[in-house]
Structure formats: C-alpha cells, structure tokens
C-alpha cells in the first residue's frame, strides 16, 4: 500500500500556519540576511576588524610609540608583522590603536549624517510647505566652505570641548560633529527625491484611507522603501568619513599628530611608497576591508528589508 499523501485538508493548512510562530519585521529581516552569504562573510570581517582594534592591543603588547631608528622602514617580520615606519615604530600596533578611532569616527559620523539627512529629507519630501525652506537650508549648507568653517568651529569650540570632555573625547566629538554636520546634505536630497516619488504611490493613498497619520506613513510605510539610497550613502560615507578625518589631521585640524588613525598612517606613508610600500599597504587594506564589508552588509540589509524578496 502506498504511503498516504498528505492531504491538503483545511485543517492541515491551518495547523501548518499556526505552528509557525509569528515573526516581527526585524527577525524576518535577520533571517533573510543570514541567507545572504556575502553579507554574512562581510559581517564576520567587520566584526573581526572591530575585534582587531579593540581586543588586539590587549593581546599584542608592542607599544605604538617606541622610536628605534635601527628598525626603521623594515618590512614585515616576526617581530613586526606589519613592518615599521620611518621612526621604527611598529605599524601593527599603531594600526590597531588608530583603527579604534578610525572605525569609531567613520561609523558615528555617518550615523549622524544619515539621521540628520534622512529626517530633513523626509520632512521636505513629504510636507509640501516644508519643502522650500528645508531645501534652501540644504542649499546653504552645501555652499558652506568646509575649511574656513572648520577653522571657525575649532576656534570657537575646541577649548570648551577639551575642557568639558578631555582632549581625546573632546576632539572626537568635534570631528564627528563636523563631518556629520557637513555631509548630511546629499542624503537629504536623495531621501527627499525618493519621498517625492513614493508619496504619490497607491500604498500611501491606501494607508491614508484607513486613517494612518502622517508620522506613521512616513516611518512605517515610506521610509523602509527609501532605504536603498540611504544605505549606499552610508557605505560610501564610512570610507569618506575615515578619509575626511585623515584630511583634517594633515591640515592640523583634527586629532593630534601622534594619534595613528588609518588615514593618518596612510598620509605619513605616502612619500615612502617607492621605498617602503608596506607602510601604506596595511592601513590601506584595513580601510578597504572596512568599507568593503560595510558595503556588502548594506547589500544584505537592502535585500533583507525588501518585502518582495521573502520566499
């Protein structure tokens, strides 16, 4: 006798649906994300890099500022896995230490920029009467000259920040603030453009017809659909923030010269490219891997949060 086929009876179907517990949007997204292989690898890499900078110094005890001219510009070796710089300082230790600052600045500044940009863009795109003033405000910020603005901000705020938070945290807050406040504009323009387009779609009309209020429509309905440009901006922004921080340092407007952020190490190494390329390759690789993994995580997130991709 053949095995009885599972009959598609009404009760079967019902049981099938009931035994699966209800899932929230985020759990669903996480489950979807996990299926994206590249994103998972990227997540792993990013976590590894973060661990590298946070825990690394606890395991690798070579100090970051021991000057030893006899060891200068030596390539990777057992004693110095990443090699040494022109003062004989160990590059691995410096990359670990500075990486904390670079990653922290990169992620925090971008979060600030995205938050500001998305809020302003959403409000401008959704509310017609706010569009003009907010976009002119954006135009103002786009026209601001970064360098003199930085000089003024530093002139006005550095000492009080330094007094309130101590030299390191004070400068960190200032740099994150400056980068965040000067890079939100493209995000705002992009989000607004998406909102202008999506606002006219049927699902918004539908939501309104069942009585959804503006805030709910913005946050729960439209915003999840504008994620893709925002995520791209975020991934590009992290690399940009890390590099902007290095530009600030070499202009003398950022962290003190002895804080070895990745961008700063790259900058110090630039004239030794033909003599000691290892000096630039390692921090460059660190930045590259960070930015690349954030990108693939972003890819995974876009897929995960895209309602049309659920299987």
């Amino acid at each position, binding site marked *: 006798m053949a095995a009885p086929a599972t009959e598609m009876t009404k009760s079967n179907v019902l049981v099938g649906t009931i035994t699966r517990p209800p899932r929230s949007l985020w759990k669903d997204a996480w489950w979807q994300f996990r299926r994206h292989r590249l994103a998972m690898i990227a997540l792993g890499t990013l976590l590894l890099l973060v661990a590298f900078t946070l825990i690394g110094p606890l395991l690798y005890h070579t100090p970051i*500022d*021991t*000057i030893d*001219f006899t060891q*200068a*510009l030596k390539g990777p070796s057992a004693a110095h896995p990443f090699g040494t710089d*022109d*003062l004989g300082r160990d590059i691995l230790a410096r990359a670990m230490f500075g990486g904390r600052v670079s990653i922290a600045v990169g992620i925090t500044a971008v979060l600030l920029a995205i938050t500001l940009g998305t809020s302003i863009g959403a409000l401008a795109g959704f509310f017609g009467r706010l569009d003009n003033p907010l976009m002119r405000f954006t135009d103002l910020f786009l026209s601001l000259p970064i360098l003199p603005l930085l*000089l003024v901000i530093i*002139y006005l705020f550095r000492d009080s920040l330094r007094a309130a938070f101590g*030299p390191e945290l004070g400068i960190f807050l200032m740099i994150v603030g400056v980068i965040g406040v000067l890079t939100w504009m493209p995000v705002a323009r992009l989000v607004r453009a998406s909102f202008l387009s999506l606002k006219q779609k049927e699902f918004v009309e539908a939501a309104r017809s069942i009585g959804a209020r503006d805030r709910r429509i913005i946050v729960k309905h439209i915003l999840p659909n504008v994620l893709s440009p925002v995520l791209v901006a975020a991934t590009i922004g992290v690399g940009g923030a890390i590099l902007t921080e290095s530009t600030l340092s*070499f*202009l*003398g*407007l950022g962290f*003190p*010269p*002895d804080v070895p952020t990745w961008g700063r190490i790259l900058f*110090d190494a630039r*004239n*030794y490219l033909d*003599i000691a390329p290892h000096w630039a390759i390692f921090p460059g690789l660190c930045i590259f891997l960070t930015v690349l993994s954030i990108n693939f995580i972003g890819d995974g997130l876009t897929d995960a949060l895209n309602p049309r991709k659920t299987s």
Partner: protein
Amino acid sequence: MRWRTTLAVSFSAVILASACAQPGTTGTSSAPSPSAAGSAAAFKRGDGGELKILYWQAPTILNPHQATGTKDSDSSRLAVEPLASWGPDAKPIANALAKEIPTVANGGVSADFTTVTWKLKDGLKWSDGSAVTADDVAFTFSLIKDPASAATTEDNTEGVKSVVAKDASTVVLTYDAPNPNFYQWGVGTCCGILQKKQFADFTGAKLKDAPGNLKPIGTGPYQVDTFKPGDVVTYTINPNFRDPNKPFFKTVNFKGGGDAESSARAAFQTGDVDYAWNLQVTAGVLKPMIDSSTKGKMLTVYGSSVERILINFSDPNAPGDQRGEPTTKHPFFNGADGLTVRKALALATDRKTVAQQFYGNGLSGKPGCNIITGIPEFESTATQSFCDSFDVTAAAKMLDDAGWKLGADGVRAKGGVKLNILYQTTVNAVRQNTQALMKTNWEKAGFKVELKSVPAGTFFTNTSPDGANHFWSDIEMFTNNSDPDPTSYLNGWTTKQIAQKSNNWQTGNYNRYSNAEFDGIIDQLRKETDPAKRATLVKKANDILILDVVIIPIVTRTQVTSGISSTLKGVVPTGWDSEMYAIQDWYK
C-alpha cells in the same frame, strides 16, 4: 624705536676691518665671483634652451616691494635688481646696478658713516630700451618710504634721511645719524629698483593697482613674458641686459605649486626641472632620492636659519584675559627653580638624532648650538658643551633633586604643579617627527607632553589663538633667520618687544622674556662702533639666550636647500640673498 637706526656699528665695520687687512680689495666677496666683470665666458647669450624652475609656493606678485614671501622676491629678481647683492660670505658684491661697492676706503662711504654714494654702471638700460638713471633709484626709495604705499620692504628705509640723484649715474644716500650698517638700504631683496616711468602714476595708495606689479620693467637678465598669479611666470631674455654675453638660457619657466616632496622627485627622479627650490623633505626620503639620482644633485649653503624651541615665560593657562600675559609667570618654566627645569628640558633634548635622522646630518641641517650663526665673527663657542650634552637620566635626576617627584602617572610634580607640556608647531612631516622624538625623551625625564600641529596659515599670525604670537602653549617650535647684521633680530627678545594683548600680540618677543641685562646689551649694541666690541656683545647676547634657556636651538638648517639638474653649472648659492641673485651666470 627702530632697530637699525642711530650709531650702530654692524658687521659692515667688520668688513671694513677685514678689507683693510686684506691687500687692496674693496671688501667684495672672495668666493668664486659671480660679478659680471667680463669673466672668461664659457657661453654666449641665448645658447641655451629653457630653464625650468619649480617652487612649491607659486609667485603671486612680481613687484618686490609688494612681495608676501620668498617666492615673490625670488621670481621678481630675474627682472628687477637692487644696487648690489649679498654674496655667500655675507658681504655685498657688485653684480647688479652698482659699478662697485662703496666703502670708506674708496670714498664711497663718508668717514662719519652718514653718507653713501652709489655709482651706477655705465650704459645701463631698462628692458624697454630707455636709460637707467639715478632718478629711478631716488624714485624707488621715495615710493617705498611713503607710508601710503604699504610697501612690505619699508623697514629697511628706517633711519634713511634721503636718497638723491646727484647726477644721472650717481646716487647719494644720507642717513639720519651715523650708521655703520651703511648697506642697510640698497643691497639685497629689500631694494629692487623700479622704473620711474612705469610707476610714476601709481605712487602712494595707488601702488597696488599698478600693472607693473604683474609685469615690471627691470634691468635684470630676463623680462616677464606672461604671468599667471599663483601658477607660473614665463620669461624671455632682456635684450638690453648689460652683459652682451649673458644670460645663457633663452627662456625661463618659473612654476609654483604642489609640495616639497614632489618637487624633489621632479629634480632627482624625472629630471623634469632644472632647479627645485627649498626641498624641506625629511632625510629618509631625500637621501635615497639623491643617492640613486643620475639627473640631479643637491645645492646647499648655510645661512642664519635655526629651527628652535621657544619657552614660554608666561602662563598659557591663566584664566581669561590674563592668558599668556607677561604679568603672569609660567608655573614651572618661570617658577622659583625655573632655570633648573628649563635646563633639564634642554638636557633631555636630542638634537643630534634630529639632525642625523631628519636633516641627514649635513644634508639639510646640522645640530644647532647658537641662535646667531652663519657669520664666523659672531659664532659663540661658549655654548658648545651645553649643546653637546644629551642625557635623559641626568635630566631626570636634576628634576628629582630639585623636588620634582615622579607621580603614579609617571609625571613629575611639586607642590601640586605637574610638568605638563603642550608643544605646538606647524604641520610638516619633519616637524612632526621631531615632536615625536622629543616627546619620547622628555617623557622619560618625567614631563608629560601633548603634541599639537597647526596649519602654517594660522600659526604665523597674530590673530590666531593657535598662533606663535599668542603662544597659548608651553613651548613652540619654528624656524627664523636673520640679516647679516643681527641687531634687529636680537631686539626681538627685549622687554619692549614682549607680545601681549595690549599690542595685539604683534611684536616679536613671543617668549615674554624680560631680562634687564639682555636689554642693556642690545642698547649697547645699537651704539657700539668698534667691530671687536660688537662681536663680543653679539656673542654675549647669544649666550644669555642659550644658557638661560630662553630658546633651545635644535638644528641649524641650510638656507638654500635646492635640487638642481646635474648639468646645470655656474650656480653659486648665497645664504643672505635671493637664490636667483646671480641667475645670469647659470649655464649648462
């Protein structure tokens, strides 16, 4: 009041003395003479092609009296010349408008040092063909002296009563009072002679609108062809140049921009340029480039440039309006045992390693012991042993013995005062490396060092709180240099020159140093006529500054640090005038 007025016998008297001792010379340079005395010509005019010069700061104006930096005074020098130039041994040479250098011996300088008579060379013509006369010289002087012109070279006219044309080719310069520094006006970058005709309608406040600022008519070997401010100047031969056999190169391309490292590459690695100016590049990058180069070689000469650390005698952390004011005292540099702390800092300063590692020990600098340097008569030897000693352990012991005990955080403290130092300088790879090295050593001695680097544009201004003038840090570091006569330079450490809020931090004594003995020496120096006595005074002033640890010299830097093409010949650098002072002699 002014620094170079009144009865002051400068090194010029020293020249006099040495001139008298030497057989029948006029005190001109004894170095391979670049003067156009019809020397056996190795070339003829126009034999060469294009001369490519690269500066990493681009010229922005070609009138030397509106120059805002070396780039402008150098680029204008190809066309606009002074009466004479400062040669390599800090003595004037007659390679420009003057026929010979006036001295007391040849009657050019009056016995009481009040009058100097300059005779112009015969048959001098401007590049537009008209004749050069003494009127042009007199006109240039009055143009500069006029306060409405806001000329940047005005300082050298202080104390000059008049400059008059006695006849078509003779100029008489008269000082207010006997001035042994009688070459004060007329020699060097301060005193390029402009054509009266070109600037006659643009005197006073109109000077800045003069088209001659961008295309001056001059007597130099070249004339300006095109000028794009901030970018490039192109020159062609001045057909009316006085020596028919010079210059060698048909055209000159004077380009600016970029940075020193890539300029070095252009000179040594690609041979794209013939003259790359001021290669302030760390030895670790420069030396390999030079050693492996087939296209270029290094051209250096020492002058008076010293990279030094200044110590703040006021309190940079005093609250409110009192910050950095001379009425406050620095907690440990100017405390009861301030000299001990300062000496300890100096003892823990490793200038030899800095000179070796970053300046290539002779490549672009050597360990610096004196603040007045470059002229043998003024070089003090009393500071040598102080300079040679570097001992971190001894420094630590010095502090410990004085009661500065090591705290749990590794910083020495006494009576609640910690040895916390904020150390500022400009953004520059060599300086940042120097800072890193100093920090390591000083922290071993028990100081705590925080580093700060400031962009040059905000460092060298009296309006910036990060600036050298405000000096709101404990120590700062930069380079400065002096004229052959150091009186005005030394004046920068007198009490009257203390920079403070009331004078908008404009004066030169950034250290807030006040020493009556030092002030007295400078007063004497202004009046002293005897050369030997002057030398003693200068050395004494130097010794006070060094031994009292007001400044810590680190490296005596080369004044000229340029990369030139291996095929470029005839270049004799001087540490006291523009690098372009004798460009008519260059050839390939």
